Each structure stands twice: as C-alpha cells, then as structure tokens.
C-alpha cells in the first residue's frame, strides 16, 4: 500500500508553488523559442511562441507526448496541403470544398481517438487551413509556408522540452502511482460495502469507473518521461485495466445466490492481487506480469455524424466569405477551422465556440495593452521578454487552475495574445492591422456559432442512444475483437460507460440502468466463455459446448441445468468445475435480470 497524505501545498499569493513554477517555465520557454527563432531568422517566429503556448502542459511527459503528436500532425497536414493545392490548382472553390471534406475526415478520426491523439487528428485538419487556405491566392508559396511552419514548431518544441528538463522538472509518474493507489483503496472500500444495489453505491461505482478510464491518456504520457517510462506506462495501464476488472468483480459479488458467492469472492481476491502486483511493478519500474492494452470504445456512427457536421460548418463559413469577398478572409476562415477542430476534442463544441467568442475580445484587449501601451514601439528583445512576462505568466496561472472554465480561458488567452501580438523581427506596430485581425477573429467565432446554431452538433441524447445501441449490438453478437483478452474487452466496455456519462448519462437513470445491465451481462458472458474454453479438450467438452450454445441463446433454464451437472462432477468446492458452475448460475441470473430490467429487449 502507498500512504498518501493530504499535505497542504506551499502557496504564494494563494497560488500553489507548482503553478508558479509552471507559469514561469511557460514564460521562459516562450522567450527562448522567440529568441532562437529571431536568431535563426525563421519566417514564422510567432508559430514557435504559439507552439510553446499550446504545449504548455503541467508535466513533462504530457508536454513531450503532445509535442510528438503536434509534429506528426504538422507533417500530415503539410502533406495534405500540398496534395490539395496540387490537385485543385487554379480552382479556389474546389480547394475550399476539399478543405471542408478533409476537416470532416479529421474530426471523424478525432472522435475515434482520445487525448493528444484526438488533438493530432484535428491539427492535421486545420493545418491545411493555416497553410493551403491562407496561401489560396499564392499556391506557389504553400511548400515554403509549410516548411517555415515545421521549422518554427520544431524550435518551439525544443525550447519547451529544454526548459522543462532543466527547470523544476515535474513528472506525471509519482502522481499517477498515488492516484492509482488511492483508486485501489476506494475500490476495496466499495467491495467491502454492504449492498451495491443502493443508489449511493451505484454512484460510487460509476465515479470510480470514470476516474479509472479518465487516466488513460495520462498513462500514455508517462511513456516519454524517462528511459523507464515505457515500462512504467505499461505497468500503469495494466493496473488500470485490472482495477476495472476488480471493480466489476466487486459489483458482481453480492448479486449472487449463496452457491456462487464463494467463487465471486475468490475472483475478487484474484483481481485484487493482480492490481497489487501491477502497482508494485509501477513503483519499481518492472514489467507487469501481463501487459494489457487499454482499448477505447469507438462509436463510428457518432464520429461520422460529427465529421459531416464539421465539414458543413466550414463549408457554410467558406460560402459566407466568398459571398462577402473581403480581403484577408482566408485568415478568418482558418480560425473557423481551428475552433471547429479544437471544439471537436471537447464534449461540447458549441460551448467551446461561445468561450471563443467571449474570450477573443478579452484577449484582444490584453494584447492591445501589451502592444500599444507596454511595448509601444520598443524594438529591443529584453523589453519584449519583460513585457510578455505578466501576460504569459498570468495566462499560464489561469491555465493551471483546476476550474475547467478558467483553465480553458487561460489557454485561450495564452495562445490568442501570441496570435494578435505576432512577435516578429523587427516588430511592426500597426493599429489598423491589429484592429482588422481582431475583427476577423471575432467574426470567425460569431460565424461559426451561427453555423453551429443552424446545424447543431450531435446532441448528447443521440450519442447516448448510439452508445446504448452499440452495447446492445455487441452483446447480441456475443463476440469481442480477435486477440482481445477478457480484461481488455472489459476496459473497452468501461470506456463506453465513461463516454455515456460524459454525454450526460447520469441524468438519464433508465438508460443508465440499461447500460450497466449490458455491461454486467457482457462481462459475465465473457468470463463464463473464458472458463468454458478451459474444458475444450477435456472429457467435459460436450457439456461445455452445450453451455456455450445456451449462453448464445440466452437460455437461463438450460444454463442452470448445465451448472448443476458441472456441480455434480466437481471433486471439491474450489475446483474448476465448481467455478464454472457458479459462473453459469451467475450468467443465468443476469440473463433473467437483463430481461426484467429491459422489457424492450425482444430478441432474447
């Protein structure tokens, strides 16, 4: 066990020291990125400062993970830009149509992924907006502009990586261990609680499940932290998968008739031992006994719908800009694509656009103060560095806040101030340019919000219905992906419940109960199937086959009959045969319960 103490963190001006050090690191990395870009005379120094702002993540592993995906996505995006410009040269409307389709494809991909992978998918999409669309009138510059962007991003990544390594490096891994250990303790408490069917306990189950699944992207980030990172990441992933299995074993434990409860208690103990082994492996950086993947549930239909909507929003905005015929509208359009893309990685795209619409004028005021009052014509680098300090540090402090709204607002400010200030060498101070840019950004956000009101994003209810349909379909097919272990399939189901809850599933009690019932059924069926597989080559093969056929047919009475025959054959109470018998009884109970819970099911 790991003892976790709730120490009061050391604070300065009521802000934890870790947040201060994070904010100062962001500022220093911005300065370094700008300095190197100016020194190398890169064409796009703003992009390198922007990269630092985007990669501003609290821990080193997260920054490196995001950086790797940003680089990869830029390569994909630049390639797509060159391809789109090359195929549709001399045809502006077709370029815009191809861009809308490409962004739709990228949003589709993002909806199938999570964490920084989803970010990389949408970045591949809006990079085309930043390169091909911004150079729509000068297609011969697409390649140069792509190279300039790539170079600036590399400088930004190197700057923040070096600063993060040298100054107060903070790793995700110790926090991850503490988090997993705490969740493990709470799972054990949940297991020892009296009855799991009480509403409070069901809520505890869902909270734990959500917390475990939410760790998934962070676990992947641990891999890049040190030379032992990939081992620790594998151990943490296995621990998370085992935790879901333990949690589910605890949930099933007191559902049972007396005869099966002994088996369920043994199952719970076995799972608990697995979690403990994985946590020990994580602590001492050893490979876990079994390396499990943590697959994610992918809802292709919802993803496709989101992709089509994103393409439609960009198409509507493009048509508006073509109709308006403004100069520099391409800049505004690329901002529409950016907000559309980033919004797709949040649960509520329209809310994200609304934050953008409110945040842009605020960021514009701050950037205006910085450019025309603080700097006001200064051309020395140290003055820029000092002038940037309060704005970069302030926004980064907001970013490190626990409040989702403040943190989003901080990220928005950090990046938009860089976009509007557009540091360059020599710096230009043109109020008219500044106002036009601000206006174009605000128009872009307003236009996107209008488009999203016209064609609303996929509603939560629709997503929930789709997830339920997925769960039902998978259970009726009674199959899981080839080569996927029982525990991995369980984790995938857990990630589906997490997505269901993220889509406001907690309010929809009836659907939630159905979702949980599907989860229980599929887990038990898989468990039983795995146990029956052990008899395939033995003398009880025919009985095992009969049981499997009964599972597929959801035939509770046959299941009970087969179970009693297994029990008769069992030499002692904790033998394999007795376990299978208990498991079959459990399955028959759940098949019955599933029928009771859900009268809409007619197939069984």
């Amino acid at each position, binding site marked *: 066990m790991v003892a976790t103490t709730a120490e009061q963190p050391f604070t300065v001006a009521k802000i934890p020291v870790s947040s201060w050090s994070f904010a100062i690191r962001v500022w220093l990395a911005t300065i370094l990125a700008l300095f190197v870009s100016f020194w190398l005379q890169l064409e796009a120094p703003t992009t390198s400062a922007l990269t630092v702002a985007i990669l501003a993540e609290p821990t080193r592993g997260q920054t490196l993970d995001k950086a790797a995906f940003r680089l990869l996505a830029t390569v994909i995006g630049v390639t797509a830009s060159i391809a789109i410009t090359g195929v549709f040269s001399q045809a502006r409307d077709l370029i815009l149509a191809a861009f809308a389709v490409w962004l739709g494809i990228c949003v589709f991909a993002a909806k199938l992924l999570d964490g920084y992978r989803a970010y990389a998918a949408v970045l591949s999409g809006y990079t085309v907006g930043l390169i091909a669309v911004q150079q729509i009138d000068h297609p011969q510059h697409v390649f140069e502009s792509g190279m300039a962007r790539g170079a600036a991003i590399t400088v930004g990544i190197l700057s923040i990586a*070096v600063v*993060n*390594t040298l100054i107060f*490096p903070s790793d995700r891994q110790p926090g991850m261990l503490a988090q997993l250990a705490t969740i493990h303790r709470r799972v054990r408490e949940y297991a020892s609680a009296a009855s799991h069917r009480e509403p409070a306990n069901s809520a505890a189950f869902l909270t734990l499940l959500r917390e475990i699944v939410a760790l998934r992207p962070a676990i992947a980030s641990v891999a890049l932290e*040190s*030379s*032992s990172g990939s081992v620790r990441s594998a151990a943490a992933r296995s621990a998370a998968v085992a935790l879901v299995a333990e949690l589910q074993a605890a949930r099933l434990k007191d559902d049972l008739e007396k005869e099966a409860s002994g088996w369920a208690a043994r199952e719970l103990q076995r799972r608990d031992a697995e979690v403990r082994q994985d946590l020990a492996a994580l602590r001492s*950086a050893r490979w876990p006994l079994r390396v499990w993947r943590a697959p994610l549930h992918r809802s292709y239909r919802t993803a496709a719908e989101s992709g089509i909507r994103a393409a439609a929003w960009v198409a509507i905005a493009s048509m508006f800009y073509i109709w308006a015929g403004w100069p520099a509208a391409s800049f505004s359009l690329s901002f529409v694509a950016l907000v559309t893309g980033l919004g797709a990685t949040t649960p509520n795209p329209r809310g994200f656009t609304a934050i953008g619409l409110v945040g842009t004028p605020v960021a514009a005021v701050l950037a205006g103060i910085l450019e025309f009052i603080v700097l006001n014509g200064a051309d020395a680098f140290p003055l820029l560095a000092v002038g940037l300090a309060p704005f970069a540090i302030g926004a980064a402090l907001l970013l490190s806040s626990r409040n989702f709204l403040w943190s989003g607002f901080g990220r928005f400010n950090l990046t938009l101030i860089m976009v509007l200030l557009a540091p360059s060498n020599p710096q230009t101070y043109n109020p008219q340019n500044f106002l036009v840019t601000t206006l174009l950004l605000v128009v872009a956000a307003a236009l996107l919000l209008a488009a999203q009101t016209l064609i609303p994003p996929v509603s939560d209810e629709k997503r929930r219905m789709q997830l339920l349909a997925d769960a039902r379909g998978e259970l009726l097919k009674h199959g899981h992906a080839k080569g996927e272990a029982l525990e991995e399939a369980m984790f995938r189901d857990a990630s589906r419940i997490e997505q269901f809850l993220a889509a406001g599933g907690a309010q929809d009690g009836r659907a939630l109960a159905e979702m949980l019932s599907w989860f229980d059924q599929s887990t038990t069926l898989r468990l039983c199937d795995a146990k029956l597989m052990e008899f395939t080559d033995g003398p009880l093969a025919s009985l095992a086959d009969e049981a499997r056929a009964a599972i597929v047919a959801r035939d509770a009475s046959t299941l009970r009959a087969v179970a009693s025959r297994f029990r008769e054959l069992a030499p002692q109470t904790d033998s394999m045969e007795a376990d299978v018998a208990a498991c079959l009884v459990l399955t028959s109970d759940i098949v019955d319960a599933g029928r009771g819970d859900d009268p809409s099911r007619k197939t069984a």
Partner: protein
Amino acid sequence: MSHTFPELVIGGVLLAPFVTYLAMALVVIIVLRPLLHVVGFAKMFSHAPIAELSLYVTVLGLLMLLF
C-alpha cells in the same frame, strides 16, 4: 583537417546537416532506451531528465565528431 558536413537531400529539398544529426541522435537515444532501463539509468541520478538530456547532447556531439 577540416570536417565536411554532408547535406541531406529529400526530393530536391536541402536539409541542414545539423537537423540530420539531431534526428540521428534521437534515433540512437530511442534505440538505447530499453538498455538504459535494464541498467537502471533513471535510478542512478537524482535528476534523471537532466542526465538523459546530457546523454542526448553527448550522443549528438559524438555523432558530429565521428561522422
């Protein structure tokens, strides 16, 4: 003796030799990682990230010196 640095040409685009060295050093470090884990490199130092950055710089310097 003067050392010439060959430029990397990809599809007619010239890349600075330093970029090639940076990428090569990264590849070397990635290949070395399992070995570093086996010898317990991260446990030898109080600030493992700085030690790993130094290792990267050493590999980069060696590559530039030798190739």
